[in-house]
């Protein structure tokens, strides 16, 4: 009956691959936002008209999906496989509990809404 939210911060060029992989395992919707961040992967240095500066925040993409409990493990594995490059900065996945989910058009709730 329950649904969970999966938030994944990934490298931007991996978005297409992750999206395809998730669609293949039956996930029908997702939300994407462009974000900036850093983890242990630090930023880099740039130079403009003779002066250096550090860009601390790197562009990333955040995917948010809400899935039924039974699909969570598979979804995580799918994201990891598609998003991993093995190099620093691959990103992170977070699992959050969801109180409820509603489909606006039909007003269905819970599992039926995802």
């Amino acid at each position, binding site marked *: 009956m329950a649904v969970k939210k999966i938030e994944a911060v990934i490298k931007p060029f991996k978005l297409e691959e992750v999206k395809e992989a998730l669609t293949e395992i039956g996930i029908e919707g997702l939300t994407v936002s*462009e*974000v900036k961040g850093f983890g242990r992967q630090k930023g880099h240095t740039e130079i*403009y*008209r*003779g*002066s250096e500066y550090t860009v601390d925040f790197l562009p990333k*993409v955040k995917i948010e999906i809400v899935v039924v409990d039974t699909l969570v493990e598979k979804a995580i594995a799918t994201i990891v496989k598609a998003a991993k490059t093995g190099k620093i900065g691959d990103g992170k996945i977070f699992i959050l509990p969801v109180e409820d989910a509603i489909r606006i058009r039909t007003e269905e709730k819970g599992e039926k809404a995802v």
Partner: protein
Amino acid sequence: MSNWIKKFVVALAVGAMTCTLLDSPAMAQEAAPVAAEAAEAAEAPAGPSAEMFTVNNTWMMVAAALVFFMNLGFACVETGMTRSKNTVNILFKNSLIPCLGILTYAWCGFNLMYPGFDYDAGANGWFGFAGWGITTNAEGITSAYNAGYTYWTDFLFQAMFAATAVTIVSGAVAERIKLSSFMIFAFIYVAFIYPIAGSWKWGNGWLNNLEVPFYDFAGSTLVHSVGGWGALAGALILGPRLGKYVDGKIKPILGHSMPLATIGVFILWLGWFGFNGGSVLSADPGLVSLTLVMTSIAAAAGGVSAALISWIILKKPDLTMALNGILAGLVGITAGADQMTAMNSTVIGLVAGALVFSSVLLFDKIKIDDPVGAISVHLVCGIWGTLAVGLIGAKAGIPQLISQFTGVLAYGVFCFVSALVIFLVLKVTMGLRVSAEEEIGGLDIGEHGQEAYPDFSPVSKV
């Protein structure tokens, strides 16, 4: 860093000297342009044919249109090199300055710049005024007025130059100057300072009547350094943008559109075909074609020079430096485009590119914040181009060099001091700078209550 700037300028000076030596009459492969001398000597007493007059005048009108187009070039360069939160403000200033320029030039500027000094009647060659407004008689639209253009063409071509001179200032004071104060400065500078200064040379004033007349073919001094001095005064009195110099470090403030900056520079280069080509003041095939070639050679050399130098010294080639380099070459050749060989022009461009690179870094080091490099391009290279006329080319020689120095000094004192005074008075009376809050939120909202890109949300690199 200042260590290698020094080494670099020395290397450059040595390189320039070497090129000059290679280029001296003793070793020249190409003769200095004789066409210019011949044209000066042959002030034909018999006027041109009606056809020739039409051709001359047509070219001058096209040239006026090209110089007019440079206002768009400046608008694009300044917009591209500053932040999007100030774009409306930049564009507003760049739109109003040509308007102010044309109107004031018609009202009084033209007649301040060309007052018709009558030396026999005791004119001093420093200040004269031929009356308010522009009007002419039947002769004014014939070759009796001038073999190259009508009175109206004369006015229009020169009016476009006036606007160009003042718009140089807007780049250096961008992102923190109060709009109302700036418009007042611009008005005074274009209506009075620019034409009075210009009369000393092009208006047949005292500089044109030195034993060895001061020489400025198309305005390295009269236009570019006049603008440059104003820019320097403004940047000094205003102070740097917030957050530019923090804890002894220089924090780059990135321009928001490299494409626009690039478009602007190429528009300016195109405009220079009219700026220098039209300064021949006729459609003389030899002179105009020679001038256009030397102009583009200098531009090209400036671009290559600045690009290479930034690549070597900064480890990566900087686009904005290359763009500034092209402009530097153009400004540098403007004083003597009709006096130079291809080798001369190359040297002028190469040196200008190096100068602009060093100046940009130097001004940052001494905490003079110039968002677009206007002072480096127009003042520094304007002075270089002016002095170059005495150093290389057909007019090279100590007497000419002294006259060039005299001119540079005269314009420097007059323009820099006037600009300082105007800016200081504005600062003390109505304030020169926007509040810190407004500067952070952006002048578009603060001064204009509108945004340049209301539809765009910030997009990061994907």
